């Protein structure tokens, strides 16, 4: 905590000198728009109560196609559209709301601006698309180390340590 305060007060310290990841804003959009609510933090998506969100790790979509999918959603699926006015003032896949009819995708909980959509697409391309199984390093870079959410990847990669807080019957 003290270090963090010092870093805020003295922005010239080494704390702030690491090169920022240019896709960090896109990671912020990925969290804020709750992409992780269906695709999970690692983008693998998968089954479950929400049906089957597609794997962004296995996607073959180009940057432009990802941008279009985020803006317009995927008709006939649960993937929502994130662009204000999509299917109304702005046609999507050459369709308005009437044309889409029963395949009209749901409206997202938040709308994203063009720059946000581009940033999240860049984040997906750089950090998710084409990647194999999620790793501990990747998880920590997403969540930082404040949550135990990444422990499971650490355990998979390393011999189990004697962590005191794992559940064991006493």
């Amino acid at each position, binding site marked *: 905590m003290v270090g963090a305060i010092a870093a805020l007060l003295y922005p010239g310290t080494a704390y702030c000198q690491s090169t920022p990841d240019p896709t960090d804003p896109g990671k912020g959009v990925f969290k804020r728009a709750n992409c992780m609510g269906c695709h999970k933090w690692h983008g693998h998506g998968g089954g479950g109560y929400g049906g089957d969100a597609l794997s962004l790790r296995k996607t073959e979509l180009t940057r432009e196609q990802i941008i279009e999918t985020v803006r317009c959603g995927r008709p006939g699926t649960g993937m929502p559209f994130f662009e204000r006015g999509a299917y109304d003032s702005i046609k999507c896949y050459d369709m308005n709301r009437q044309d889409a009819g029963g395949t009209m995708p749901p409206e997202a909980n938040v709308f994203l601006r063009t720059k946000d959509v581009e940033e999240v697409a860049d984040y997906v391309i750089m950090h998710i698309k084409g990647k194999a199984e999620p790793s501990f390093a990747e998880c920590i870079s997403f969540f930082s180390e404040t949550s135990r959410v990444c422990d499971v990847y650490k355990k998979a990669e390393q011999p189990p340590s004697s962590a005191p807080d794992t559940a*064991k019957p006493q």
Partner: protein
Amino acid sequence: MTRFKGRSAIVRAGMLAVGFATAAYMADRSPAYADDVTPERLLNADKEAGNWLHHHKNFSATRFSSLNEINGGNVKNLKVAWTMHLGGVEGGGIWSHGGLEGTPIVENGFMYVTDGWGSVYKIDTHGGHGDLLWKMDPKTDHDWAGAVACCGVDNRGVALWGNLVISHTLDGRLIATNKDTGQVAWQRTVADPNKGEVITGAPLIVKDMAITGVAGAEYGIRGWIAATDLKTQKEVWRTFTIPGKDEAGSETWKDDKNAAASGGGSTWVTGTYDPTTNTLLWGVGNPGPDWDNAYRPGDNLYTDSSLALDADTGKIKWHYQHTPNDPYDYDSVAENVMVDVQGTNGPQKLALEADRNGFAYAIDRTTGRFVWGLPFVKKVTWTKGIDPESGKPLEYDSKKQVQTYNTEVTPSREHKVADICPGNMGGKNWPPTAYNPELKLWYIPVIESCNRVTVEEATQDKIKPREFFTGGGPSQPFKITGSVTAIDVTTGKIAGKAELPFPNLGGILATPDLVFSGQPSGEVIAFDGKSLQKLWEFNTGGGVNAPPMSFSVDGKQYIAILVGLGGAWDKWFIDSTPELKKMQPGSTLYVFSL
């Protein structure tokens, strides 16, 4: 713990760190207000008419309050007495927000409620208003637990023992909090989110033990029920709901893939206790993977079963399975309500269970033998009915390894897209029933539903820690409604049905001549206990996702209910009730009186 002084709610600077809580001493409330909650008081909970000491009101889970100041003659005058905004609405993991599913506990005018992330609030209800005395925030690890909570950021409430408030957290802890100070006395890890285990149910206190159930059958867990000795804080027993190799029942897992090890069988609804036989009754949830039953040939005991266990040892006394080799996600986690009635052939000691598969079951709770059963939903398609002798689905064939029931509508590897009624949320989900022992009527909070299941073939390589292992998923092409359905327990027949526009996601309270329930569209409703005619309604403006309860203080009766839509519905099932998309997240306690 943060402690507040009287109505001014001044927080004194927190100085005493308890690791996860900030404590501050205030001397304004004497511990003399509190009485220790003894096992004897818990056994005789119904003798304390103004209190609500157990999650389900009593060990039998009748959720019947004998208070009758509020009755059919005057309920039309019921008004909001006070409200209190609570917290815990923030998201975490795959969830954008939390919700409220808890039942308030009230002892001698002091109320204890939880929010979805497991914070406990103690509220003084004396004097016709609510006064927050302390809040214990367990600092639940949101992302860790929220990422493996299949069905929402939920906590269904606390229990009382001695001078401690006993609660669970989503991230797997059992916590004991000093009732007077709000300081955490101790905590113990019971479930492990790294294995996909979380806890949403309220603890059940039996003697000096806290009984804990687990959730996580969508993540490849092997379910269990565990008892913790509250005096020593050690585990007394842990009974797995899926038998180990060579144990009785293991022969019902006939695969060669060790499917039992990830076979599900969660226990996330608080059970009941029969002190005359020292028997716990506890419901067990779906097998995993949920929808690919060809992955796990055999009956898959003890999934989808009611289990009777010796309370001291956890040893299984009997089981009754409702949906063998379940391909629908028809959990039997529901509470088993203990009811004694005079049947046609003499006195009956029944366990009543309203199953997700759409049938209500009465089981002889001494032997585990089927007594009667009937559909309580308007539409059942997965089976043509149940056998009047055994209660098993008519199409059940014990020689078959993979059950297909009504093949035309049953999801399978051959029939990958199937529409089922009830839908996979079931005819009744976790929201509790209530039983009026005077009218002999049992009230079920019903989801009148169908939905679509798409099967995806499960393979062993899909089992990964903290990842869904469901063998497919549901979608919602059909509109879903709800009802309160009453069953006459002396005849085993439906006595009435009050249809509701939305599914019943909150549960029921019964009083001598009334029934209270809520709607996810905001209404709290009072019905006539016999006719189920609506007598009173108030719109809270927030989605009702929790059961109503009743208590008295200063000689006056109140009805209390938590309001704030959470749970699975607004993420996974909202397309079946598009009108509910407008409901906003919230976290408020409503208290009503005349």
